């Protein structure tokens, strides 16, 4: 399976995402922001970092990158797409996911490992988890405070689209939301960094479960 990792200028978790993809035994493919080509990948990860310095608003400039046109097509066509941290911010700016990520309530950048509950395993990025499973995942962000209009939040909850939820909310996000998916459930955005917990030497490899899900998902689809 080929998993593409988009490299925006200013992204800084691209290498980590590529590494994690390798760790789950998939083939990592670099997708350069300026090339409108997904190189035939089966899934795409928009990694964390500070694309364009997070200037103006996180993700605001990156979402206009050339690579975003084929990516939007891919996502709208049901392709498994994961945005992590800044990647999540890009997906909301691109309207592939609802809502926005505001500045943390504390007004501080926060880098901390927090317990996160997997609410729904029926996405390509959570299928390897059991419902209610608790993963310990690091967050590292300044704008991770998920916000959407009341109706949108209610809809997300009703439709089971809150995929990851903080047990200890590090940023003030509504309903302790750590990650959501789109209505078709193939596009997931999350603030915690699963790719960072990808090796026992780093403390744990719990995060690989999130990424392995997409392998299972692809396998399931083939059968």
């Amino acid at each position: 399976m080929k998993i593409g990792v988009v490299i925006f200028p200013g992204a800084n978790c691209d290498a980590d995402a590529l590494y994690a993809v390798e760790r789950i035994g998939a083939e990592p493919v670099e997708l350069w922001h300026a090339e409108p080509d997904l190189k035939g990948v089966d899934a795409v990860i928009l990694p964390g970092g500070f694309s364009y310095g997070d200037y103006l608003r996180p993700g605001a400039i990156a979402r206009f990158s050339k690579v975003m046109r084929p990516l939007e097509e891919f996502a709208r066509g049901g392709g498994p797409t994961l945005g992590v941290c800044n990647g999540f911010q890009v997906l909301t700016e691109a309207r592939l996911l609802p809502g926005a990520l505001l500045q943390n309530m504390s007004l501080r950048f926060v880098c901390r490992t927090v317990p996160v509950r997997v609410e729904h395993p029926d996405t390509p990025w959570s299928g390897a988890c059991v419902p209610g499973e608790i993963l310990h995942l690091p967050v590292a962000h300044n704008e991770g405070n998920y916000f959407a209009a009341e109706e949108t939040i209610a809809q997300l909850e009703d439709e089971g689209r809150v995929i990851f939820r903080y047990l200890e909310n590090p940023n003030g996000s509504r309903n302790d939301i750590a990650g959501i998916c789109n209505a078709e459930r193939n596009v997931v955005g999350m603030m915690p960094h699963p790719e960072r917990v990808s090796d026992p030497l780093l403390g744990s490899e719990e995060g690989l479960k999130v990424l392995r899900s997409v392998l299972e998902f692809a396998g399931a689809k083939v059968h």
Partner: protein
Amino acid sequence: MNLEETYRSLGLSDAEYARVRELLGRTPNFLELSLFSVMWSEHCGYKNSRPLLGRFPSEGGRVLQGPGENAGVVEVGEGWALAFKVESHNHPSAVEPYQGAATGVGGIIRDILAMGARPVAVLDSLRFGDPADGRVRYLFREVVRGIGGYGNPVGVPTVGGEVEFAPAYTGNPLVNAMCVGLLRVEDLMRSRAVGVGNRVILLGARTGRDGIHGATFASDELSGESEARRPNVQVGDPFAGKVLIEACLELRRRDLLVALQDLGAAGITSSASEMAAKGGVGIEIETDRVPLREGGMEPWEVMISESQERMLAVVEPERVEEVLKVAARYGLGAAVVGRVADHGELRVLCGGEVAGSVPAEYLADAPAYEREVVEPEYLKEAQRLDVEEIPVPGDFNAVLLRMLSHPNLCSRRSVWEQYDYQVRTNTVVGPGADAAVMRIKGTKLGYAVVTDGRGKWCYLDPEGGGAATVAEAYRNLSCVGAEPVALTNCLNFGSPEKPAVYYQLARSIEGMSRACEALGTPVVSGNVSLYNETSGGAVYPTPVVGMVGVLEDVSCHATPGFGREGDVVAVVGASGRASLAGSEYLEIVHGRVAGRPPEPDLALEKECADRVRRLIAEGLVDTAHDISSGGLAVALAEMAIAGGVGVEVEVGSGRRPDVELFGEAGGQILIAVPGERWDEVREALAGVPWQIIGRTGGGGLKIGGFVDLKLEELRGAYGRDLFAEETG
């Protein structure tokens, strides 16, 4: 303004001006005078420290590059090497703390980049005044935000550092940043310009008027006038910095560069003249080819601007096009601004005319001042301490809680949680331990990094304190299981023109050097920051040491937290040396900064630390922590809090309990070992002093009949948020 006023206003002394005239054999024009003034500033020219720095031992088996380059480089193994250096940004941070700290991080990262290394870790060593003061709190908060504000986006994890508070730093905070870079030995780059006819390419941001005369500013005492110099303030652009890193690494990978140099203080002038002087060549810069951010800049302004996020590269003519292409792909500015020449001069051209030209080696060779080293008056008085006058407290629980919640001893979590310490997924042990441990992907190898500074001890005893600083760094690396290899340092002192400060500087260097020799850790790079003074006087003499160590198998490392109940808890190192002199306890509880701290016994120090390190490397010990600020009681509390497991120990030397509990000496390491492994450990410790003091377990900390506290109580005191607004 006449000539005399001009050179004085640029910061040159009469004698220095005379020297310039003599060297040139003529009167310099304004541009040339500007070049000399920035290059002969203390900051760039090391006028007062150069003769002393020669004392540092700088050679060792693993050293690939000692002082004299943008960073020192040591070999790790399997073809890997580490480049590292620490640098100060004290003055800019005093004026504009966020941007001062941010650009400090950016600047040191580019020094590492210039060696051809990928920046992989940042550490920050910070000193502020009393945090009860509102302005101090503002400086502290903004400096920390600035470090994260640059380090986080640029994708280099900030994995360690220190923060200390003392009134001596009130008007003049210290903001030192260290960066470590990883490279293949064969990729080591240097900044020597060679090859007459080669092109000089300026990479990165456009040049503006920012930081004009920043180097001179950094070499001045802070005064009301500093406020007026505010247009000097530089703003960091981490996004541009990140792009610059990636582009330079690609240029390096594709072997497109002859030499590379960052632009720091004194901008193009400093970089070009140093590159030329090192290569024994000349460099011509055409200022009208330099991409500018604002109109109407004079050639001299272009030459000394300190705009951030720029690098200077020497490139063979036939590779220029390729270099420009790589830059374009990254959206990075790049312009050919000059060429390497055979005349040995830094020549500035504007509109085809020579605007100024001076031999590069003269610029690089500032006059050096040696002064007499005379013991200052204050020292004898400060060292006087009659312990009998210090009352023994009644309630040790209360004393310990008070100490644990003191800004100098409490948890630094509220600082380091603002830093991304994990990005790049190599951080094996992050902030909060004795040293950070990093892995090198694709190998079993790891390295550890730490910064240490003991300003108060250096104030009370410059030589002993200097040695203790190096010994502490050595011990901290050993506690995580790393073999200490080499160090970098930043010498933060007051005005060297004051005899007391010069004495502190000279003796600290002596003490550090002795420790380096005894411990076998050479100095491979460093930085000097003098004139750290305000009307309130000089800062504590604060040499900051950044040390790097190697782990052959990074999976065998240790952390401070107690991990199991029932472990044997032992102290390795000489007992009975702990003293209240210069201790945190003496200051926090009794309000005194006094006494002569115990001098490290370097041979024993090394022996003990090396034994512990070997035990860790062999996988026998995984829990270790040195006894440092706050003494035994604080060290035990930290281990219990970190691991969430309590401990019960006895103390019984018959000395005063406050000395036993809170005295400081250095040289001692606490280890916790499962009972079944103890015999093996004991055998390995044969020949060095050690002592079993108790066992882990229970829900808190018990020390003899003196301390009995629950983990929650310890956590409550220790875990305070340093940024929370004080009430009352």
